[in-house]
């Protein structure tokens, strides 16, 4: 078959899957990460209030999609390296450094991992930034990123409605409406919408319950 054989269908029997809708968006003051909260094993919802937004450093977070075990392990390792970096360099790492760590782990272990990660953060050098690291271990710096099984439904919507340098409220509204559609059409996404806002003044967490986002567009 003269090609690279990649077994992308290797979620083992009974493995917990984050069939997900996740996104991260840069805006005027920084960046916002968003995710649904559904974890599934087959057709069973193993957790309906999952937190797929994981902190890896002071002002750097990630959105996880794919295998729950793989993405948690990768995030834990990145978190460890960033802690070591802070201790040794005496300064906070940039979002780019964190994203590169994710990328290296995902690329070097691509035959063992099912992990689609969006790394986003705020640092003084670059402000808010978003890096998408899809399954093979490539890295893409973007103004905004969407990923997970639910994201396929909102490529068009996001492409039409994203604008650079939106205000905080505009961005929240954009993400809420985008994720609402992803959750609506994707069976493996659902529950609440969680968000993390990263700006120079620190971080803020938001939760939107179904009655707050259903029919938001």
């Amino acid at each position, binding site marked *: 078959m003269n090609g690279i054989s990649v077994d992308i269908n290797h979620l*083992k029997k*009974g*493995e*917990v899957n984050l069939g997900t809708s996740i996104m991260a968006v840069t805006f005027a003051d920084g960046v916002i990460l968003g995710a649904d909260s559904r*974890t599934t094993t087959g057709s*069973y919802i*193993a*957790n309906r*209030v*999952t*937190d797929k937004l994981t902190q890896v450093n002071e002002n750097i977070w990630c959105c996880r999609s794919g*295998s*729950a*075990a*793989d993405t*948690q*392990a990768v995030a*834990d390792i990145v978190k460890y390296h960033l802690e070591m970096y802070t201790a040794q360099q005496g300064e906070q790492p940039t979002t780019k450094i964190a994203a590169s760590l994710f990328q290296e782990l995902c690329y070097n272990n691509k035959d*063992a991992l099912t992990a689609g990660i969006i790394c986003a953060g705020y640092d003084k050098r670059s402000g808010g930034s978003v890096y998408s690291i899809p399954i093979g271990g490539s890295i893409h710096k973007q103004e905004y990123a969407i990923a997970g099984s639910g994201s396929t439904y909102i490529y068009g919507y996001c492409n039409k409605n994203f604008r650079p340098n939106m205000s905080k409220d505009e961005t929240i509204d954009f993400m809420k409406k985008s994720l609402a559609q992803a959750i609506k059409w994707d069976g493996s996404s659902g529950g609440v919408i969680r968000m993390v806002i990263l700006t120079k003044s620190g971080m803020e967490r938001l939760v939107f319950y179904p009655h707050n986002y259903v029919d938001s567009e």
Partner: protein
Amino acid sequence: MAGLSFENYQRNQFLAAKGHGVPKATSTGTTIVGCKFKGGVVIAADTRATSGPIVADKNCEKLHRLSPKIWCAGAGTAADTEMVTALISSNLELHSMSTSRAPRVVTALTMLKQHLFKYQGHIGAYLIVAGVDPTGSHLFSVQAHGSTDIGFYQSLGSGSLAAMAVLESNWHEDLDKEGAMKLCSDAIQAGIWNDLGSGSNVDLCVMEVGKDAVLYRNHLTPNVREQKASSYKFARGTTAILKEDIFKLIDVEEETIHSEAMEVDA
């Protein structure tokens, strides 16, 4: 070499491919639950262990102690839940001795998830980890592949759907200890009655902040066997005698010993 031995893996794959049966592990086709309350956390389990459709143990213990105030309930492969629990329990004790601090639930959880992730799901342990430590009371679950979840209530095992139905309908935020114990045992009973992989009794463990953990072994026993209709005592002489041999086991011999002064080396 440290770790598990995989030396028979290839041989077994070969045997299985040739149509030979693979050995069946005892699975705790189980219902286990956990639930937080105001001042602590409760975990509970049924007590049936199965091997295929056969009940291997009617009253097994699925509640394991990781440390005096951190307990976990195990589902999945019985041997794996027991061994992984014993290993982490040891390491937790060594860790707490070297740090001179009471062990924390997150520490146990991290050790478990890293160990299970390393074995990529081949160690079939599904655990609900709960306990109290200097940071408060905690409740987590770990899956065999190494992923973890956090929540106010958890259920795992083949009866987890039946149990979760009860938890989702009756859980509320201001449960007290008695309420949490009742909720957990109701959830386990849902598994006992409606899931064929679960049965027999309810074991329960309560961990309260500032108190010793209390294990209620066989908290409920709703499945006591009724009296049999007949007695099956065999009359003496029912067993066939195929051969009869009588051995003389003790031979008594008498010997007179002349008592002279013994020679002792100088």
